[in-house]
C-alpha cells in the first residue's frame, strides 16, 4: 500500500505541476496588471491560449530542418522530467531517485540546448540573436544555480532534492548565512532563467530586446503551445525549487493522507507569495539593456559562491 501510494505520488506530482503551471503564469500576469492599475486578463487565460494554439495549424519555415519539429517535444519532455525530481507535497518521492538536483539542472540544460538550436534552425537573424543571448544568460545562470545546489548539498550531505528538504525539515539551524546568499542567488537566477524582467520581457516582441521570444518567433500551433507550456512549467519549477530548498515547511514527510491534504493549501499559499513577489519586482524594475545582463548574472554567481564559501568557512563545524 505504501509503495503504491508513493508511486502514485511520483506520477501525480509532476502532472500536478504541469496542470498548475499556466495558472501561476496567469496569476503573475494578473497581479502585475492590478499593480499597474489595469484590470488584466482572467486567471485562466493561459489555459485558453494553450487550447487555442493546440487547435491551430502548425506553420514551419521552409528553411527549417527536421530538428525544428522535434525540438518542442524534447524541450517539453525534458522540462517535465526535471519537474518530476521536485517534491511537491511530499518528500516521499521515488522519482527523485532517478534524477537528483544536478540531473535536474542537466535536464534543464538539455531543454535549453534544443531550444537554442531550434532558434538557430530557421536561419533568421532574430532567432540567432535570441539564441546567442540565451547562451550568454545561461553561461552564468547555470553555474550559479549549481553553486546554490552545492551550498545546500554540502549542508544536507545529499544532492537528492527530497533528501535536502527532509534534512532542512529535520534540522535545527534555520537561519544560516550561507542560505541567505544562496536564496538571493537563486531568486536572481530564477528571474534570468525564466526570462522575466529585468533580464528579458515575456510580454514583448520588441525586436531588439527579446531573448526567449526571439527563439520562438518561427513557432506556431502545437509546437508553440508545447514551448509555451514548457516555459510556464519552468517558471513553476523555479518557484518550487525555491520552496523546496528554502521554505519546505508543510511538506509531508511520509505518505500520510492527512499530511498530504494539509501540504497542498500551504504550498498554494507559498507559491502565491512568490508570484506576488515576482509581480512586484517586475512592476518596480525596468528591463535592463542586454549589455548590463552579464553584470547582473555575475553578481548572482558571486552571491552563490559567497554562499558556498561562507558555508565552508563559517558553518563547517555544524
Amino acid at each position, binding site marked *: 500500500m505504501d509503495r503504491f501510494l508513493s508511486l502514485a505520488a511520483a506520477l501525480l506530482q509532476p502532472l500536478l505541476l504541469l496542470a498548475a503551471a499556466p495558472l501561476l503564469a496567469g496569476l503573475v500576469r494578473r497581479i502585475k496588471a492590478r499593480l499597474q492599475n489595469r484590470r488584466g486578463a482572467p486567471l485562466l487565460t493561459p489555459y485558453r491560449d494553450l487550447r487555442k494554439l493546440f487547435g491551430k495549424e502548425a*506553420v514551419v519555415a521552409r528553411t*527549417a530542418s527536421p530538428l525544428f519539429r522535434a525540438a518542442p517535444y524534447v524541450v517539453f519532455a525534458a522540462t517535465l522530467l526535471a519537474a518530476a525530481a521536485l517534491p511537491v507535497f511530499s518528500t516521499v518521492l521515488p522519482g527523485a531517485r532517478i534524477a537528483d538536483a544536478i540531473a535536474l539542472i542537466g535536464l534543464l540544460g538539455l531543454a535549453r*540546448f534544443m531550444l537554442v538550436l531550434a532558434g538557430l534552425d530557421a536561419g533568421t537573424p*532574430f532567432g540567432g540573436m535570441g539564441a546567442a543571448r540565451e*547562451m550568454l544568460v545561461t*553561461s552564468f545562470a547555470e*553555474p550559479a544555480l549549481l553553486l546554490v545546489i552545492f551550498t545546500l548539498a554540502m549542508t544536507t550531505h545529499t544532492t537528492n532534492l527530497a533528501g535536502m528538504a527532509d534534512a532542512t525539515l529535520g534540522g535545527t539551524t534555520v537561519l544560516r548565512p550561507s542560505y541567505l546568499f544562496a536564496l538571493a542567488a537563486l531568486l536572481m537566477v530564477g528571474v534570468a532563467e525564466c526570462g522575466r524582467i529585468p533580464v528579458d520581457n515575456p510580454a514583448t516582441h520588441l525586436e531588439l530586446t527579446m531573448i526567449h521570444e526571439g527563439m520562438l518567433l518561427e513557432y506556431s500551433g502545437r509546437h508553440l503551445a508545447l514551448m509555451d507550456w514548457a516555459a510556464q512549467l519552468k517558471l513553476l519549477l523555479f518557484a518550487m525549487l525555491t520552496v523546496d530548498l528554502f521554505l519546505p515547511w508543510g511538506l509531508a514527510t511520509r505518505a500520510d493522507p492527512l499530511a498530504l491534504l494539509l501540504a497542498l493549501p500551504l504550498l498554494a499559499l507559498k507559491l502565491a507569495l512568490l508570484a506576488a513577489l515576482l509581480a512586484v519586482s517586475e512592476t518596480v524594475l525596468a528591463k535592463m539593456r542586454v549589455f548590463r545582463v552579464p553584470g547582473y548574472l555575475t553578481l548572482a554567481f558571486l552571491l552563490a559562491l559567497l554562499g558556498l564559501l561562507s558555508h*565552508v568557512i563559517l558553518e563547517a563545524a555544524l
Partner: protein
Amino acid sequence: MSAAALTLPLAEAAVLAALASAAVSPLAARWPRALSLLAFPLLGLAAVCALAAGTLALGFDVAQGAVLPLGLPWLPWQLSVDPLAGVFLLMLGAVLLPVSVYGPGYAREFRNGRDSLATLGVSTGLFVAGMLGVLLAADAYLFMVAWELMSLASYFLVCFQHEHADHRRAAFVYLLLAHVAGLLILLAFGVLAAAGGGFSFAAMRAAHPDALWAAIAFALALAGFGAKAGLVPLHVWLPEAHPAAPSHISALMSAVMLKVALYGFLRVTFDLLGVPQWGYGVTLVVVGSASAVLGVLLALQQSDLKRLLAYSSIENLGIVFLALGLAQIFQAAGHPALAALALLAALYQALNHALLKGLLFLGAGAVLHGAHTRSLDRLGGLLRRMPRTGWMFLIGCLGMAAVPPLNGFVSEWLTFQAALQAWRLHDGLLRILVPLAAAALALTAALAATVFVRAYGIAFLGRARSRSTRHAHEVGGGMLAGQALLVAGIAVAALLPGPLLGLLGRAALQLTGSAPAGTGWLWLTPLDPATSSYAPLPILAVLLAVGALGVLLLRPRQGAAVRRADPWDCGYAPPTPRMQYSAAGFAQPQRRVFAPAYALRETTAADRHEVEVGDRTWVWLYRPLGMLADRAADLARRAQAGHVRRYLAWSLITLLVLLWIVS
C-alpha cells in the same frame, strides 16, 4: 588455458598488427588500394585485440608481465598489462576500431593528390604501435622508446599535408614541445630510477624517494605528460597540430594520444611515486581548472571546426586532471573510497572524451569531405544535406555539452559528487579550494554547452553560407559506419554507466586500494543511495515516452502535419543566408565579458568588422621565452666569433678552470 592468460598475448598481437600495418603500407606507393585492403584492416585487428585485452585485464583483474628478448643486453624490454593499462587499452581499441572503418573512405581523397599514401600508412601504423607500446611498457627504457615512436610518427602525420605553410609550422611547434616533454619525462624517470636502483617499474614502485625528490619527480612528470596532454600553459601545440592532421588522425590524436599522456601521468604519480600528497592534489586542481576554463573560453571563439574541437580537448583534459587532483587530495586525507570515486570520475571523463571527441573529429572530417571547408562561417544547413552525419554529430555535441541522458553528464556528475564530499576534509584551505574547483567546473560546463550549441547551430542548422556547402553531399558507407560505431560506444557509456564503472573500478582499486560500491546496471549510487543517485535508462525511457505520446496525441487527424512557409521573422522581408548570426557574432557577448582572457584584435572598415582572437599564452609566455632564447643566442654568438685564437683561448680557460676544480 583460461581466458585471463590470453590478456598479454592479445595485447602483444595488437602491437604486432599495428607494426604489420606499417610494414605493408609502402605497397600503397604503387598500389593505392593496399591502404584500404591491408593497412586499415590490420589496424582494425589491432583495435579488436586491444579491446579484448583491455576487457580481459579489467574483467579478470589480470596483472601479467613478460620480458622480451629485445633491448640492451643488461636492460631487456619488459611488458606488463594490469587493470590501469587495461582501461587505456579499452579506450584505444574503442576509438581505433571506428577509425579503421572510417579511414579508407577518408584516405581515398588523397589518392589523386600529391601526398604520399605510403607515408600516411606507415606513420599511422607506427603511431598506433607506439601508443600501444607506452601502455604495455613495464620499464622506463621501453616506455621512452615507445613514447618517442608515438611522438615522431605523429609528427609526420601532422605535417602530412606539408604543402600548407601553417601545417609545417604546426608540426614544428608540435615537435618542439614533444621533445621538451620527452626530456622532462626522461628526467622524471631518472629521479625515480635513482631512488629505485633500476629502470623497471617494479623497482621504482618498491622504492620511495624522499619528499623533495618525490616532489621534483612529480613536477617533472606533470610538466612532461601535461605538455602532451595539453595542459595550460603547455597546450599551444595542440590547437595547431590536431587540425593540421587528416581528420581520422586528429581523432586518434585527440581521443587516444592525449589519454596515453594521461596514462603516463597516472602511472608515474599514482602508481610509481606511491605516497599521495595534498600538495600534488592542489597543484593538479589548480592546473586542471585553469586548463578547463581557458580551453573552453578559447574554444568558444574559434571559427574553424577542428580548432574548436582541439581547444575543447584542452578543456576536457583539464577536467580530468581536476578530478585527479581531487583523488590525490582525498587519498592524502585518508579517504580512499572518495579518492576512488574521484579517480573513477577522471577515468570515465577520459573514456567519454575519447568516444565523443573521436566521433566529433570523424564528423568534422565528414563535413570537410562533404562540404570542402571546415570554417563555420562558410557552413550552415548541413543537417539537411548530410542528415546521417548531422544527427550523429548532434549526439556528440549533446554529450560534450554534458546533458543527461548522455555520457558526458555521467562523468561530470561523478566529479561533482566527489567535490561535494569536501566537507569531510579537515584542512580549511582544501575545504575552500575544492568548492572553488567545483565552481570552475560548473562554469566550464555551462560554457561548453555554449561552445557546442554554437558549433552545431552554425554548421548544421540554418542556411548554407557558401556555394560549396549548398552542394554538400553525404559521405559514403564506411565513413558513416565508423561514426556509427562510436555512437554505439557512446550509447553504452551513457546508458549503462554502472557496469562500465564496475570494470573501471578495478583500476581505481589498483591505484587507491578502494573501489566504490553501488554500480548496479540501473542505478548509479557511488556513495550511498540516500546521498545521490542517477539512472539514465529511466530518464531516456521517460523522455522517449513523453515525446512519443506528444507526437501521437498532437498529430492533426486530417490534412498535412505542417504547412511550409517562408520564415516569419517578425514580418520583415525574407532574410538572406548572410543575415544569419555568424560564428563570430554568436560568441560576441562572451568575447566582451571575458575580454581579459583573450588576445583580441578588432578592425572595423566601412563594410566589415574583423575580429581576431588569439591565445594570451603566446603573448605572455612564449614570446618572452622566444626573445630570451634569441638573447641567449646573441650572447653565445659573441663567444663564437670565428677566430681560431679565441677558441684556443676558450679551451685553455676551460682547461684551467677544470684543473682548478680538480685540484
